[in-house]
Each structure stands twice: as C-alpha cells, then as structure tokens.
C-alpha cells in the first residue's frame, strides 16, 4: 500500500461523522466611508497614499521621487514613460530595480490590503524584489472587508494572486518594527479617479 493510500484510508476510517458546513456571516456594521477607512489603514500599516488625477500626474510624481539613474519599471500600459519589460524575463535581472509600478486589482478597507494577480505583475518576482513598490488603484475599486474581497475574486483563475498590505516588514529584533525586511522598503498607493 502506498503512503497515499495508507493516509487516505486512515483518514476515512478515523474522521468523525457528518458535521454541516456553516454559512459565512458578513459584518453587520461596516464603515460608511470605506474609502477613508482604506486610506487610514494603509497609512497605519506603513504605506503611503497619494491622491492623483490620472497617469500623467503619477508619472511626474515618480520622476521627482526617484530621479535618474533610478531604475523604474512600468507594467501599466496607460502610464507613459519608464522602462517596460518583456514578459518572460529572468527575475534575477531585476535585483537593481528601484521601483516597480503596478496596477492593483482592488483594495480592502478593513486591512489596507491590495489584491494583485500575475497578469498585472508581468514578472511575478517584481513586487518582491523591487526596492520600492508603487501600486495604482482606482478610487472606486475598494471593498469593505475580506469576505467581500473573496466574493469579488470569485472563481477567477490565476497562477499567482496576492494581497499586499504595506511594505515588507519585520519586528524580529526585540519587537522593533523595521520596514523593508526582504521586500520593498516602502509602498506607495496612487489612488486615481
């Protein structure tokens, strides 16, 4: 008997009798202003929120914030300028990237997380290997809580999907919070109309 068969047969024999699946209860009193809640939460977890009218403003902001010779990778078609990459690239070539700009699918007000899927990453190492990360989010794409978030994700197919909430962080040394453990040292969220 293989280990697979052995495990499965022991599990079948030992699992207790029928227990029904519960319904998921949605919070009764969600914030009336999820937009404000989102901004407050992102800031609270070490992110920075910048309100923008559109892509040209984002371009200007990034140019000013990360002057030459910073390596800025742009994965958004609508955003003018910066370096674009071919999809199948070796992720090791991104070790010197200063900042990557990506489109976030939607944000979650209760925890400041932004959902990203690999189709917006172009290369799935980029959100983690870049020194800084900039995510562009439309103002109307914010949901209240995680239950709503998973309703929105639904049965979507992806290779990699991730919630990113703030910059990479650690408090492993005496509980002192340090931003930029292994991944981006800062997270900028551009909220556009």
């Amino acid at each position: 008997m293989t280990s697979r068969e052995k495990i499965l047969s022991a599990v079948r024999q030992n699992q207790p009798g029928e227990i029904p699946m519960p319904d998921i209860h949605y919070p009764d009193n969600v914030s009336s202003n999820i937009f404000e809640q989102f901004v407050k939460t992102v800031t609270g977890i070490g992110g920075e929120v910048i309100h923008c009218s559109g892509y040209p403003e984002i371009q200007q902001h990034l140019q000013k914030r990360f002057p030459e010779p910073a390596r800025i990778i742009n994965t958004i078609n609508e955003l003018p300028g910066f370096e674009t990459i071919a999809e199948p690239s070796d992720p090791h070539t991104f070790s010197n990237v200063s900042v990557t700009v990506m489109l976030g699918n939607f944000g979650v007000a209760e925890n400041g997380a932004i959902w990203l899927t690999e189709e917006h990453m172009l290369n799935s190492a980029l959100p983690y290997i870049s020194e800084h990360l900039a995510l562009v989010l439309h103002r109307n794409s914010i949901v209240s809580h995680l239950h709503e978030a998973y309703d929105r994700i639904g049965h979507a197919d992806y290779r990699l999907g991730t919630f990113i909430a703030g910059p990479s962080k650690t408090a492993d040394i005496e509980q002192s919070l340090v931003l930029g453990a292994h991944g981006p040292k800062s997270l900028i969220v551009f909220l556009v109309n």
Partner: protein
Amino acid sequence: MQQHQTHAELAEQFNRDINRVNWHDQTLWMVREKRDKAAQQVPDWEQLRETASQIKNHTLAHLHAYLLEFEQQALANGIQVHWAADAEEHNRIVHRIIQEHGVDRIVKSKSMLTEECGLNEYLLQQGIEVVDTDLGERIVQLAGEPPSHIVLPCIHWKKEEIGELFHQHLGTPKGNADPDFLTRAARAHLREHFMMRRVAITGVNFAVAETGEFVVCTNEGNADLGAQLADVHIACMGIEKIIPKRNHLGVFLRLLARSATGQPITTYSSHFKKPGPGKALHIVLVDNGRSTRLGSDDFRNALKCIRCGACFNTCPVYRRSGGHSYHTAIAGPIGSILAPALDMEKHADLPFASTLCGSCTNVCPVKIDIHQQLYTWRQVLIKNGHASSTKKAGIQLTGMVLSKPWLFRVSGKVARWIMRTFPGLMNNRFNPWTKQRELPMPPKQSFRDWYVNNRSHD
C-alpha cells in the same frame, strides 16, 4: 526515565535571570495586548471565531473527500503532489526533489511542519545546506538553536546579543545593536542567498480543496522572494491545513494576523495556484500522526490549529519559562497538547506545564479547547504510568485523607498546629511548593469549626 531535562528543570534555568524573565514576560504580554486591540476593532470577532471553528470541524469530518478534491485540483493546476506518512518520509521526499535538480544549497521560509520533521538536520546530514530566510529564524539558525516561538522565533534574544551574533557571522561592526541596522545587514546577507538558490521550500498556511491553490502568509516577503527567484518551489504542509472553499480564506485571514501580532493582515498573503512558466511546484502532504489524532474525540480538536501563536503570548507559564523549556518544535500550550501524541514518553511533562487557567482557550481563533485537552492529557499520562513516584505517593495520600471525613478533620487540625508552631517545617528548601513562594499563616480554626460555632449561636 526521561533522557532529556524536563520542562520544570529547563524553566528553572530560564528563571535564574529574573530581569530577563520579566522582560520576556512583558514583551509577550505586549503582543497579547495588541491582539486584544485588533480583535476589539472587529465588531463580529466572536462570530468569526465560531465560524472558523465550525469550518474546521466540518473539514475534519470530511477530510478524506477534501484531500482527494485538493489533490485532483492541484494536479490539474500542474502542481506535483506527494504524500508522506511520517516525518522521515517527508524528509526523504524533499531530499529526492532537491537531488533531482542537482543542487546542494537551498533557501527555506518559515514552516513549523519542517521543524516538526527535523528537515534541516536531515538535509544537513545529506550534505545539503539550508538557509532559513525569516529574520528571526536566521538568527536562531546562526546561533545553532531551534526557534523558541512559532511566530516570533527569536523572542528570547536581546538586540545586543543579536548584534554580537551578526558581528561574528556577518561581520557587522562590534557593539552595533540597532534593530534597523541589523535588519539591513540581514537583508543584504539573505538577498545573496535568494539570488543564488534554485530550490526554495516554504510552509503552507491554508490549502483550498475547491481550487487546488495554497496560501502562504509572511510579513517579510521571504517566502515570495524565495519562491519567485527559484526554479523549484517545494511547499510542505500537514494534511489538516486543508479548507474547503476559497471564500473561507476570508474568515481565516481576518483571524490569523490579528490573533498572531495584532496586525489587520500580514503584509503578504500569497495564493500559489500554478507553477510559473518553466518552473516546478511541489506539495508534500504530511500525516505524521494526524490521521490517528483524527480518530480521538478528546484530542481531534487540536488539528484545527492555524499556528497563530496567540496561546503562547497569553500563557503565564510560557511567558515565564521560555520556548526552549518545552523541548519540542512547537512550544507553548498548543505544543503541549500536540507533542505527547507524537511521543508520550518524551513529552509526558508538557501537559503539566500549565496552570489550567484557560486563557489559551479564550484567545484561540479557532476555539480549540486547549486547557481541557491539557487536563485530559494528564489523565492519559497518569493512566499510562507517566507520573513520578513522589507525585503518585502524594496523590494517593491526598486521596486517602479526602475519602475519610474524620481523617480530614484530624489532619487539618494537626497541620494547622504544626504550621503555626513550627513554620520552618513547611517553608523550607526541601518542599518544592515553597520554592519562590511562602505558605501563608493558617487560621486557628477551620471553616467547618467556625460554621458549627456560629450556627449554634443563631
């Protein structure tokens, strides 16, 4: 006889430095308070715990079907699925995959399962170098120690000691103990490993039967950097990590980080569903005693654990005895009910490392009856002969006295007289009860005598 030191002996060593114990205690209590604040901000927190608990109960009752569904979906996604009956088989499978790719150095992010299986030691014996990439885990690895906490692996280390450790191993300037500086040094050191390694191991927080995907949560991003830069990603999980549906993640991710550190969510909650182009994705499903535990009405519940560590942070015994006193990969209250099932002889002391105060049960996000299981384990252990002769004699004597009311009254009177007349007979270094505490002065009369006297005056 036990070959290693017991929890009580190791805790006594930890307690020699009282300032350190107080610091350890207060640091963990601070984390517990953060958890409370985060939980209070979620209006339906108790309902959420109840839902999570019920989802887990349901999943365990249908685990066979969900394991099959997960396997089928994962295979359809292009993930290679392996089954390991025990720790040894798990280690062999992981080693074989590494060998197939012809490498002798790998990176690994936090996985309590691989700690449980002793993977690092096994791979080291096979000539494979494992670099733990979680900062706390890397610190204890450099020091040659196991983690002392499942979420905060080096919570027992002071920054000055970490500064010295990094000075020795990473060449940082002597005397620099600034957490920012040390974290930057570790970042540079580990980035080199991330760039060079072709195989990355991660743990699994949740695996979804419906979609065949699995979720890994970190704050540092080390699991992601490892997995995205390597050609081969091996994810190791216990079979109890399965949840039925993707939308159940909403329930568990709302609870996990809030319970663990008081954050609303970890920085990264990555959903791995398919291997990247030209890459390999493996999952190792490990039993290692879980299917046996599933058959126990008393202890099944512990399989609901999502490894948040809330029970550690709240436990008055853990906070004052330190993680290493538990001499097992998973310490604290949850470790004390998990470990005896794996090796009753070796871990017979752990269910006694508790005051049974119940705080662990009260904070558990999936409502495991931890303190009840600690109590039940004690019954099992005594029945199986795992009690010291002193404890046995004491319990037998107490049983005899309590079963005869006249003997109880006489003994009480004698004991009160002795304690009042010769307090040194009880409060001395030979009585384990009076270590670090003193017995109070007993009253002149018992409650029974008082009651009899006062009632007669009515």
